[in-house]
């Protein structure tokens, strides 16, 4: 997803943060993937914001989307890039770091400090490339559980995330219901639809069709830039709405007249090319293949979210956005329907936004109101003030 470009000075910034690393699954204790493969050691990159309280009851795990990373808020020493959810995490913000201890980890299979296809295989001394096991959303969550164990947190106050982050939220509820007090899945789904799989397949094919991909063994030569940038361009189309593209670009031209050539005439073309070119510098092509496949495999429908006969006391707040056509509201409503069938304490809100799927990064105000109060009641409960009755 795109970074939040906040040019104003943010007095509520989470401040300077440093990425930390936790390595587990050493020799003889390999991490078992859902595919049946095993691998170790595994490193997860993570960042934390705020302070863990004494009884470790104020920890919130924030989960990133497809191309996100552990850098969710604040800035790194000597750099200006704020984290991907900087407008939501910080002192006084939705995830208030004066009150809560916020953790964000890069997923397993990623390329931002966690073990993934671009990591060095200790056996061969070369990147794993396609020797890396296939991953699933359940594997991502399983790996995060090691981190949460390591941090000594028995029960998370909340797990929250949007898009693929929302899938991880749901997977946490499915895999470890006793370890999450509340959950906020945003702009997400119980299962990838054929349309979503289709987009991901085109994304993968565009990477794999680039000869520079070299069956995944491109690390000595550089990224399959053409394929990867086209892949990201497809992604960016799906993140916006028809309306937000009209507002952002309309049919405006980069220069005043048509070039009558295949240069980028329209602003929207320039934008996509810029986004694609930028992405190549920051994201590993094989990680993109692996992670898109993981979310295509994702399916918690049909009773897999909450085991049959099991009651859960996790509070859940589902949020969707009206113009999001990548993860449309009907998919969030499907989550809600499942929760209703299972007597789960649920809140659902479809927010009005013109920004499409990107709204979760942009619509700060309403999300802040919802998240802030939802967390407050989860953390503090109700203050009993007295009774009134009929006279």
């Amino acid at each position: 997803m795109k970074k939040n470009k906040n040019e104003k000075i943010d007095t509520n910034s989470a401040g300077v943060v440093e990425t930390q690393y936790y390595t587990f699954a050493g020799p003889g204790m390999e991490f078992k993937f859902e595919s049946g493969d095993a691998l170790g050691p595994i490193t997860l990159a993570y960042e934390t914001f705020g302070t863990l309280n004494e009884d470790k009851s104020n920890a919130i795990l924030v989960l990133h989307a497809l191309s996100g990373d552990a850098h969710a808020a604040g800035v790194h020493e000597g750099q200006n890039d704020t984290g991907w959810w900087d407008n939501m995490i910080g002192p006084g913000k939705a995830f208030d770091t004066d009150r809560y201890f916020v953790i964000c980890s890069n997923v397993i299979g990623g390329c931002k400090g966690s073990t993934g296809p671009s990591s060095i295989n200790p056996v061969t001394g070369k990147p794993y490339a396609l020797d890396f096991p296939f991953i699933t959303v359940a594997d991502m969550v399983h790996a995060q559980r090691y981190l949460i164990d390591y941090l000594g947190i028995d029960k998370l106050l909340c797990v929250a995330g949007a898009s693929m982050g929302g899938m991880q939220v749901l997977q946490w509820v499915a895999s470890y219901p006793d370890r999450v007090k509340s959950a906020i899945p945003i702009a997400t789904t119980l299962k990838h639809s054929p349309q979503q799989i289709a987009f991901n397949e085109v994304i993968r094919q565009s990477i794999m069709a680039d000869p520079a991909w070299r069956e995944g063994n491109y690390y000595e030569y550089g990224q399959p830039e053409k394929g990867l940038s086209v892949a990201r361009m497809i992604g960016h189309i799906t993140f916006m709405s028809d309306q937000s593209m009209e507002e952002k670009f309309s049919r405006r031209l980069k220069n005043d007249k048509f070039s009558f050539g295949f240069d980028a005439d329209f602003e929207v073309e320039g934008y996509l090319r810029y986004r694609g070119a930028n992405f190549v510098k920051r994201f590993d092509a094989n990680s993109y293949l692996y992670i898109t496949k993981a979310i295509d495999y994702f399916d918690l429908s049909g009773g897999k979210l909450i085991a049959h006969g099991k009651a859960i006391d996790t509070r859940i707040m589902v949020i969707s956005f009206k113009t999001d056509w990548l993860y449309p509201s009907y998919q969030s409503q499907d989550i809600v329907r499942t929760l209703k069938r299972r007597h789960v304490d649920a809140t659902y809100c479809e927010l009005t936004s013109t920004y499409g799927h990107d709204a979760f990064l942009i619509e700060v105000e309403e999300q802040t109101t919802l998240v802030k109060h939802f967390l407050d009641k989860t953390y503090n409960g109700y203050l009993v003030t007295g009774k009134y009755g009929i006279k």
Partner: protein
Amino acid sequence: MESNNDITLDHRVIYSIIEDHTRVLDLGCGEGELLYPLVRDKSVRAQGIELDDKAIQECVKKGLSVLHDDIENSLREFPDHSFDYVILNQSMQEVKKVDYVIQEALRIGNKVIVGFPNFAYIKSRFMLFFRGRAPITGSLPYLWFDTPNVRFLSITDFKLFCEEKNIRIVEAHYLGEKEIVRFRPNLFALNAVFVLTNR
């Protein structure tokens, strides 16, 4: 804490009906004015259904669980007897499929609390009969072209409806402006609150 005067009579009546630690579904819960005191004082496990964005935000501010949905579409997935009480207060008259909604409410709740404005209230009758105007009263405050209400019924109408549908009325409360009405409610009550079960 709110003083008694800030709380409408129908809310006080419903508040007093509902026991501690029960499960309550409020259809058309607005800003949670009714659910919040129940949750706060009576440890009720509450779920609201509401369509208005702003009202949903207000519910969340109060810490209530609320689902963004319209009443008619919201009921199907709830299993039988999911709630001790299903409340349909001042929202039934805005529903098109009244029969369906009440039957579904009776399926998913052990008891259903229905509160509605009485169209046969004396001032309504007066306005219609003597002035030839569509009634506007304290419980029916809207002009004809600007009302969310699509159903207009009297207390007698509702009793006949229950009779015909084989629905048992467990309790009936008739409400005036400030106090309970005991004499000829179909004429003198602004609002009615019924507690229903399946026979």
